[in-house]
């Protein structure tokens, strides 16, 4: 399992219902990452609070130095769909 896969599975556990979730190894070196997460968990939260949730999900690889640099992009799903799909 690559570091990218590990990070993706940590994020997937934290944001199981994310319609968008990606981890990109920006440099190919396995330590500079761009993550993008769209999750209903972010609804109503400030960007600081949203990023805190991502940091929390990746606390271990951040602490042990696996992640050298982390770029984060977060958002809540755009539409409040009242159409009743689960």
């Amino acid at each position, binding site marked *: 399992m690559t570091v990218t896969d590990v990070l993706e599975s940590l994020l997937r556990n934290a944001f199981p219902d994310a319609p968008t979730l990606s981890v990109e190894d920006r440099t190919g070196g396995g330590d500079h990452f761009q993550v993008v997460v769209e999750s209903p968990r972010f609804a109503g939260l400030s*960007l*600081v609070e949203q*990023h*805190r949730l991502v*940091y929390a999900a990746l*606390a271990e690889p*951040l*602490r042990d130095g696996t992640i050298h*640099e*982390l*770029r*984060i*992009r977060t958002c809540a799903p755009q539409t409040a769909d009242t159409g009743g799909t689960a």
Partner: protein
Amino acid sequence: MSELRDRIQTIISEEPVSLFMKGTPQFVMCGNSDRALRALLESGAPVTAVDVLPDPQIRQELSALSGWPTIPQVFIRGELIGGADIVEELHASGELRQRLDEALGAEREQVVQTIPLAS
């Protein structure tokens, strides 16, 4: 609380805009610190910079205070605005300037200074 932590807290609370970065505005040592600095300057922010590199304690105490694990960190009047990604995003949408206007007034002097914190 350690003396260093007190000094960091004082800067965060009292400076209009504080930027904890790697390097200084004159000699930036990290691309992300540069992104945050540029966004602030382009939004017309005054910047009080603190270089975290001279002493690893600075970064430790800062993150303990803010609960934010990475550098840079930007505060406006004591409030954590975020790291490079958030500050850039807020700059792009115009919200950063708006928040600066609200916190500091639209007519402000843009002073850029560095406070040394090495113990």
